[in-house]
Each structure stands twice: as structure tokens, then as C-alpha cells.
């Protein structure tokens, strides 16, 4: 050891002497630091990139300023993570799965709260190791109550249930069975809706101990999954949810009553448009804008079972008037659409590389919803972003 030290000592002395002389003539060293973010702004968006085509073990959540088209930072989670924001926008939650040896070993499922300014973990809650592993990681797989006290994490074993997490006490409280129904769409302070395999909806009330107090199913299905299935995430406008189907039907559901009640369906497409093959599609084909009572749909032309095909246009509908009010042609086809909730909203569309097409990186396009005007894009997005959310 001493011999080793003796042999390297002259080297250190030489380095000190050599650099010492030079440093004296250079300007003072630059201040370095790790950046912190300001408060989340209305046009910030968060992209969940659960997988690349060659990896799905480390989900990315990308934080983007949609006004300046800058990537502000990112989070790295585990296998096929889902993510959402706390209602006060102070935390970003990730529900994750990790294996102790990467792709094998002991499984740990955990909800991690990241400080939204530092994008660093603040606290975590270990949950039962059975969370749903699904692409896309939609917003019904990790939902937060309006007061921010509880998180609902979707499980799939393949039996379905929701784990209730007490956020403040970092504790998994219990599990609510939703047999035959999947996901949690929040419809009240302690209430969520689940979509069932027969086309009905399940309305679940729960208490602060994380236990279900009531679980009521619609008397009759509001759509027919055999004939024309609906995409599982609706546009929520006030107390009404608007589901769209593979063939372009709109199914309104009233969430102000318990159990939820289906309304009269209407169509997104005219007979001529249907004949021309227009239909909704993508991983996140629908976005709502509650202040305007509007919803936005990614549309493409294709045959049956093209429900995951990217849209080439976004059609805008007024939910009350049941008619299309605008049409936005996309510079590049998009697989996901999201509209911000503020009074000067932006529409964001994420584009994925075409499978089997030329290699290209994902891109986020931005539009003014007032005029449908294209405002620009952020390109070279990391990973394979499949879900957009925001404040």
C-alpha cells in the first residue's frame, strides 16, 4: 500500500505544479448546479413513454414546456409505469413495477411521489405486486381523488381490482374488487366508474379507510362490445362522460346519478364520411375541453380493426349541439391527442414512428385550438411516448 502511494505521489505533485500555474491565469470557475423547475404551467405536458421497441423495463415520463417547445426534464420509472399529477400540482406520481435483478428476481410494486420542482423522488408507498401491465398506460390505471388524499392503482392478475393508497400516510389501505370491470374513472370525491365487459358501467363509492361502501352496476349496457366497442377513456365534460366507438358512435354517460346512466348515442361521421372510411383511431384518440363543451377526436381513413391507426385529422365536436365544429389537418399523423384545460388552450398531438416505415423519432405537435393553427413541434422525443397528460 505504502509502496503504491510512494509511486503515485510524484504524479500528483507534478499535476499540482503543472495545473497550478495555468489555473492562476484562467477566469474564476463557472457556477454549476442541478436545475430546479418553477411551478407547473398551464401549457406544460407530461408524456409517458412506457417502452421503446427494444426495451420496456424503464418507463420515461417527459416534462415538456408546450409554449417554448423545450424538454424540461424527465423521470425514470420501472416496468410499464403509469403516471399522474397531484391535484395541487406539487407532485408527479408514478406507479411502477421493479424486479430485483432487472428483468427477473423479486417483484416490488411501488407508487413514488416525485417533487414536481426537483423531479426527484420525495416519498414512496409499496403496494401489492399485482398492478396492471398494459400499453398504453392510460389515465384509468392510476387515478387520484379530487382532494388528492387517495390514489387508485389498477390491478390485473388477470382478475381486476383497484388498490387504494393513502397518499399522506404512504400506506396501501386495501383493495376494491371490480370483477369483470376495469379501470378507475373518477366521478366524485370518493367515487369512481369502471367499464365492464358486457358494455355496462360499475359505479363504486369508497370511504377513507379504502373500502367500498357501495358498488352499483348499470341496469343495462350502454354499448354493445360485440358490435361496436368503445375506446376505454372518455372525454369528461362536467358530469357527463362521452365515449367514442371504433366505428365512430358517441355514447354519452351521465355520471351525476348512481349508478351511471347511458344516454342516446349519436354519430361522429355522416353516411358519406363513413362510406369514405373515416373513423377514430390511435392510442389516445380522444380529448375533452370542458370549458367549451368540446371534444377532439383523431380521425383516419381505414377499414375495420384499424382502431390503433394514427389520425391524419383532428375533428372537433360540440357535445351539446352534437355536431362537428372544426377540423384540423395534422402536418404529421398522430397517435395521441390532448387539450390543455386553461382559457387559452393548446391542442397537443404526439406522433410515433411508423412501424415498418422509415426510422424517425417521436414528435409533439402543438396547435392553437382557437384557429386550429399549427404552432410548432418538439422533435427527437425520447422513447415511445404513448400517453399525454397535464395540469
Amino acid at each position, binding site marked *: 500500500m505504502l509502496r503504491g502511494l510512494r509511486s503515485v505521489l510524484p504524479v500528483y505533485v507534478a499535476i499540482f505544479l503543472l495545473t497550478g500555474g495555468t489555473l492562476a491565469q484562467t477566469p474564476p470557475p463557472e457556477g454549476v448546479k442541478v436545475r430546479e423547475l418553477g411551478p407547473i404551467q398551464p401549457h406544460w405536458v407530461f408524456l409517458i413513454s412506457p417502452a421503446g421497441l427494444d426495451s420496456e423495463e424503464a418507463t420515461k415520463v417527459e416534462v415538456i414546456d408546450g409554449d417554448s417547445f423545450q424538454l424540461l426534464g424527465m423521470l425514470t420509472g420501472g416496468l410499464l409505469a403509469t403516471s399522474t399529477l397531484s391535484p395541487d400540482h406539487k407532485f408527479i406520481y408514478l406507479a411502477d413495477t421493479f424486479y430485483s435483478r432487472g428483468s*427477473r428476481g423479486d417483484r416490488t410494486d411501488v407508487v413514488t411521489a416525485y417533487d414536481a420542482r426537483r423531479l426527484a423522488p420525495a416519498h414512496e408507498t409499496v403496494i401489492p405486486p399485482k398492478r396492471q401491465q398494459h400499453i398504453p398506460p392510460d389515465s384509468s390505471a392510476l387515478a387520484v381523488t379530487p382532494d388528492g388524499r387517495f390514489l387508485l392503482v389498477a390491478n390485473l392478475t*388477470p382478475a381486476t381490482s383497484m388498490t387504494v393508497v393513502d397518499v399522506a400516510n404512504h400506506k396501501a389501505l386495501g383493495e376494491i374488487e371490480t370483477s369483470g370491470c376495469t379501470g378507475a374513472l373518477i366521478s366524485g370525491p370518493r367515487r369512481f366508474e369502471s367499464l365492464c365487459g358486457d358494455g355496462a358501467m360499475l359505479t363504486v363509492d369508497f370511504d377513507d379507510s379504502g373500502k367500498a361502501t357501495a358498488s352499483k352496476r348499470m341496469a343495462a349496457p350502454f354499448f354493445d362490445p360485440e358490435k361496436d366497442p368503445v375506446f376505454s377513456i372518455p372525454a369528461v365534460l362536467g358530469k357527463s362522460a362521452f365515449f367514442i366507438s371504433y366505428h365512430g358512435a358517441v355514447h354519452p354517460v351521465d355520471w351525476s346519478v348512481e349508478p351511471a346512466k347511458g344516454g342516446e348515442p349519436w354519430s361522429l361521421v355522416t353516411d358519406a364520411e363513413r362510406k369514405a372510411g373515416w373513423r377514430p383511431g390511435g392510442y389516445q384518440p380522444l380529448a375533452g375541453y370542458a370549458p367549451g363543451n368540446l371534444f377532439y377526436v383523431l380521425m383516419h381513413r381505414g377499414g375495420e380493426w384499424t382502431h390503433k391507426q394514427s389520425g391524419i385529422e383532428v375533428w372537433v365536436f360540440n357535445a351539446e349541439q352534437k355536431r362537428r365544429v372544426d377540423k384540423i389537418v395534422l402536418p404529421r399523423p398522430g397517435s395521441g391527442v390532448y387539450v390543455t384545460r386553461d382559457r387559452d388552450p393548446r391542442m397537443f398531438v404526439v406522433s410515433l414512428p411508423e412501424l415498418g416505415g422509415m426510422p424517425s423519432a417521436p414528435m409533439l405537435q402543438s396547435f392553437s385550438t382557437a384557429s386550429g393553427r399549427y404552432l410548432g413541434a418538439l422533435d427527437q422525443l425520447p422513447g415511445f411516448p404513448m400517453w399525454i397528460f397535464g395540469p
Partner: protein
Amino acid sequence: MDLLIERVSRTVAMRTSRRGILGLIGKVILGAMVLPLLPVERISGRANAAEGAGEGDPLSCDYWRYCGFDGSMCGCCGGSTTECPPGTLMSPTSWVGTCKHPVDGKDYIIGYRDCCGKDQCGRCFCQNNKGDMPLYRTQLDNGVSWCFGTSSFVVNCTTAVKLGLKS
């Protein structure tokens, strides 16, 4: 021993740069990727085509069994249409699709069984969505990682196994 390791690492450090080493590793990886792919892909393609006479090419996304497929084809990843690559875990569960056989014209139930426990193979990605439904029809959802019954939900690639004739 300490001295020996120190000398070796000093020599390496003096003669190379970090970028150089990364470049070398990159070349080795690229070489490893490119070399086996060039001749092997063509040969395995021929072999598979010969196997299912009239059924088409199991390494092509329009192969009849892949009508509800979503993922990397195991035939491109060290397995085949019905076999998982070495060291992976074949799931006993699967989502199912109903595909028409090109020769006998009959509808078959196909089980898309994932091979789990290793990260995405990434080759020959193929997505057809015939019969694919959202999660509320779990058994028909090709977006689920179908690794139930195995010890890891990381998906490497997907097979397409004939389960029987549609009744």
C-alpha cells in the same frame, strides 16, 4: 496485486480515451448484431416458408396467424411461431384472436402466448389488431403483457399458437 492492477489500468488509461473504448464496444455490439443477421435471416426465412407450405411466411407480418398480433415475432428472436427463445418463460396464458386459414378457409382460434423474463427483442415488430378490444374484454386485449403464471412480466417476444377451430 494492487500494484499490478494499478499499472495495467494506468497503461490502458494512457493509451486510450473513454470515447475510444465506447466506440470499440459499439463496434463489437454492432458487429455482433450485423454478422449473424445477414445470412441467418434469409436461411431461416426459407426454412420457415418451406415448413408451412401454402400458409405463407411466418416471419412476415401478414402471415395468417398474426391477424391479432402485437409484438416482436419470436421467429426473429431465437424462437419460432410456437416456441419461445432460449431462457425465456412461456406464459401459460394468452390473449386470443380468430384468424382465417389461407388454405382450408376455416377460422382458427390463435393464442398469442408471450415469452417473458427477458427485455423486448425488438426485431420484426408486428401489429395487426383484428379482434383487439380494450381492457374491459381482457382476453381480447393485445396491449396486456400476457405473462400471468410466469415469474416476470417483461415481454421478450410473442408466439402464435393454434388453439383449435372456431366453433
